[in-house]
């Protein structure tokens, strides 16, 4: 075989590998370290960029054990920016972009779940229009779905379109109204 043919074969193998890996991991919820609890940028529309960067790279878990009680939880902040309120029990915070087809499938699933489960709200944010929030939460791909607890702290997240069962399972992990939920992760 020529070099070109070998490269063609390698490209096909790489594609199949990447595609299957994506299909397997899409929609799977992974718990996040307490980054969400640390992300509280305080109230207001102009959080310091340095602070956001700090959040994005994650903080030492010891530092985030005791978040300042006065801070607005980051999820609540994002919801407020787009004019929504957090769900009493949990919020499904979806980062979307105008172009992504799986975002629409995700929206349907999350709307469905929020209708089904009392106290659960679906909030959709356009990642491109809210780049501050996109950075604060470290969003790399759309759709990304974050499950926030009642206070707006992140419990878990999934990139790619999740199934309804995956969302319901993730919701079951949300601790019931517990102010110091951020210490356990």
């Amino acid at each position, binding site marked *: 075989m020529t070099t*070109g043919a070998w490269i*063609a074969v390698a*490209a096909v193998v790489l*594609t199949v590998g*990447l595609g299957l890996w994506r*299909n397997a991991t899409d929609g799977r919820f992974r718990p996040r370290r307490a980054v969400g609890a640390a992300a509280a940028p305080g109230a207001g529309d102009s959080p310091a960029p340095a602070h956001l960067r700090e959040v994005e790279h994650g903080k030492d878990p010891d530092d985030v054990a005791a978040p300042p009680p006065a801070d607005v939880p980051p999820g609540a902040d994002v919801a407020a920016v787009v004019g929504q309120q957090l769900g009493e029990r949990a919020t499904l915070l979806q980062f979307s972009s105008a*172009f992504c087809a799986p975002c629409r499938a995700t*929206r349907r699933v999350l709307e469905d779940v929020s209708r089904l489960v009392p106290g659960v709200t679906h909030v*959709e944010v356009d990642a491109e229009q809210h780049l501050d929030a996109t*950075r604060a939460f470290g969003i790399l791909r759309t759709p990304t779905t974050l499950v926030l607890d009642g206070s707006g702290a992140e419990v878990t997240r999934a990139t790619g379109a999740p199934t309804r069962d995956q969302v319901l399972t993730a919701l079951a992990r949300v601790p019931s109204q517990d102010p110091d939920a951020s210490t356990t992760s």
Partner: protein
Amino acid sequence: MTTTATPRSAAGASRPDGGIDPRGPQLAAALTSVVLLAVLLLPSPYDVVLLAAQAGAFASGAVRGVQATPQAWLFRTLVRPRLAPPSEWEAPEPPRFAQAVGLGFALVGLLALLAGATVVGQVAVGLALVAALLNAAFGLCLGCEAYLLIRRATARRIAS
């Protein structure tokens, strides 16, 4: 309770301004994959000619919009009339951006082939082939995902 922060036109019926049929870019990616495969398999003068043609198609898509590639034309005239209307419409900017990324790889490949660095050129074509195949077979648009990352990165530079 369901709330949607950014209302956009609902799926189905109405076509948003500039919206494109998402099956178009996917079919175009399949055709592009075939062209790029042929570039890798054909002997010397033909691979350069074909890659130059594909670079031209990428350039047209990047500069004049995704609808302006030969692949999109084939979809519009041969395939689309035989299909039901799509259930969703898609924004044209990200696939257009992806065309620009494809153009970058095609140009690197073309220059390398012309300069005699055959393997370098073929690797560049191979990477473009991966992106095109991923789009065609799995509906994954790497260029589209890069779009958000680049928006993030450039906006950060402006902000700080």
